[in-house]
């Protein structure tokens, strides 16, 4: 049962702002990475790691912990930032993103990074992986919940729908999918590259419960998780987001899917986020 106060909301907004700054700085230092989809997911990931999930950074392999899978693995800067801010590893590692011998690989690697529950990067596979974890929870009589964050472009992958069918078949009530619906993919707008519309109806047709929210509104995010926990059967939260959210020149611009900011751009981005924090 998730409850929250207005103070929690304030704290989560501040945390999300810090995570956005971490994302910009780490991608700038790496001179490579994926800022757009990291920024669009920042509020959702912050809500999960700093309010919703039952986790213990001191005991990252705790058997009964909630699991998080970043199916859109390229957005790992948001995950790394959340894990570092939460205390899974030292913040200094954020400076090593994508560097040789870094614990922070270009895409998530469960063998190298504390707190990463599953390796990802090749799109479409995270929901299936989450089903495996959710089924294991049932057999082992553990109460944990599995959260899978997918990109909207990612649901063009056929395996996502194989997984959707399976989760409904096994009536998994300990699996919550979140679609980070920012409308963009590498080659442009999803509706132009390969239209995924209607998203909500697709999930419903596959036997899922759906909740549609503004993925940048912290109250809506927490309410959605609260509601999802009460529903029997798999739930997908379709979160409408803005790719590059929080940095004006990155917002809704496809090229920022996988581009690092230059010296001037990083200054402007951090200044904007600083202003937002005030």
């Amino acid at each position, binding site marked *: 049962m998730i409850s929250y106060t207005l103070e929690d909301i304030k704290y989560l907004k501040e945390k999300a702002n810090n995570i956005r700054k971490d994302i910009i700085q780490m991608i700038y230092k790496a001179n490579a990475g994926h800022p757009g989809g990291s920024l669009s997911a920042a509020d959702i990931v912050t809500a999960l790691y700093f309010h919703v999930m039952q986790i213990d950074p001191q005991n990252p392999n705790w*058997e009964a912990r909630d699991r998080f*899978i970043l199916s859109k693995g390229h957005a790992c800067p948001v995950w790394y930032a959340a894990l570092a801010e939460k205390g899974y590893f030292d913040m200094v590692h954020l400076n090593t993103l994508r560097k040789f011998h870094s614990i922070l690989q270009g895409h998530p*690697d*469960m*063998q190298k990074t504390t707190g990463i*529950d*599953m*390796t990802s*990067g*090749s799109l479409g*596979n995270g929901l*299936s*992986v*989450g*089903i*495996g*974890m959710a*089924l*294991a*929870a049932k*057999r*082992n009589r553990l109460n944990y919940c599995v959260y899978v964050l997918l990109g909207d472009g990612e649901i063009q992958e*056929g*395996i996502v729908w*194989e*997984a959707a*069918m*399976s989760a409904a078949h*096994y009536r998994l009530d300990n699996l919550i999918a979140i679609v980070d619906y920012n409308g963009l993919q590498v080659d442009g707008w999803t509706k132009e590259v390969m239209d995924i519309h209607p998203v909500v109806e697709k999930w419903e047709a596959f036997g899922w419960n759906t909740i549609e929210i503004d993925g940048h509104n912290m109250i809506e995010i927490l309410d959605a998780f609260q509601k999802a926990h009460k529903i029997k059967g798999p739930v997908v939260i379709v979160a409408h987001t803005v790719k590059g959210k929080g940095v004006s020149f990155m917002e809704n611009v496809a090229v920022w899917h996988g581009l690092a900011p230059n010296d001037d751009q990083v200054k402007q981005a951090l200044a904007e986020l600083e202003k937002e924090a005030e």
Partner: protein
Amino acid sequence: MLEQIATRRAFGEELVRLGKEREDFVVMDADIAKSCSTDLFHKAFPERSYNFGIAEQNFMAIAAGYATTGTQVFAATYGVFASMRACEQIRTFICYPKLNVRIIASHGGLQVGADGATHQAIEDIGIMRSIPNVAIVHPADGTSARLAARAVVDYEGPVYIRLLRNPSPVIFDQNYKFEIGKAVALKHNGNDLTIIGTGAMVYKTLDAAERLKAEGINVKVLEMHTIKPIDQEAIIKAAQETGGIVTVEDHNIFGGLGSAVSEVLSENYPTIVKRVAIPDMFGESGDSELLYEHYGMSVKDIVNAAKEVLKKKSK
């Protein structure tokens, strides 16, 4: 007449026995449990069995996710689907994170009940060999398959287990030992040359050894049930002792046992090697014994390969 059983059946029966002994594994299928003989486990342990229908990529990634929780998973489908349809899930989500998923790949090679080329896994060993972290085992008979099941549950890391559809003679008895990564020396221990076989071709290899013996050619026979990690020591020793090698497998001539043996020898002890395998062609429908004859993989072909090696060796 020796008892006959398919390795898929023997493996499936042993999984049921193991299920009674230990709780630390589950079985997953993608619709064809009956064909993979994992239906036996489903019947015995319904609460430890899952079926995900005709969706091999999904079921393999589910197996990966399940295995992250510490319970090992046997994931069964045909070799052709495991190694190709679910190849990326095996590579990126099982092998890369070194998860304890045991891939049961039935219907290896040309034995697919006349289903033809679409269902014949003739490239699977080559595909799997090129992926890091995965062991590849290919038992030769029922005994070998049963012991493989027992070896695999105690193995740390992913394993690809190649099984066969057709019943074949049980050639090993209670003295047979199965250790992943260790070749098995069979009764023939001549020094004229070595024949290394894998899977159901081991039986043909033994037949060929008898025929060669009748002609005064004494060969050594090795069963190579583990293609990766390959038993380098046994291969090099055989080459040193006999100076010529024939490999026999039901797989395309590229990427399988013959390639693995040749790689070991060319780097360590250059020796003449003749590979009996599918000659880089797709298969077709028909009785598998007729196919073996057609593609040059019959006992007669093994005998001829051995003679060819002897000839080249003596030059």
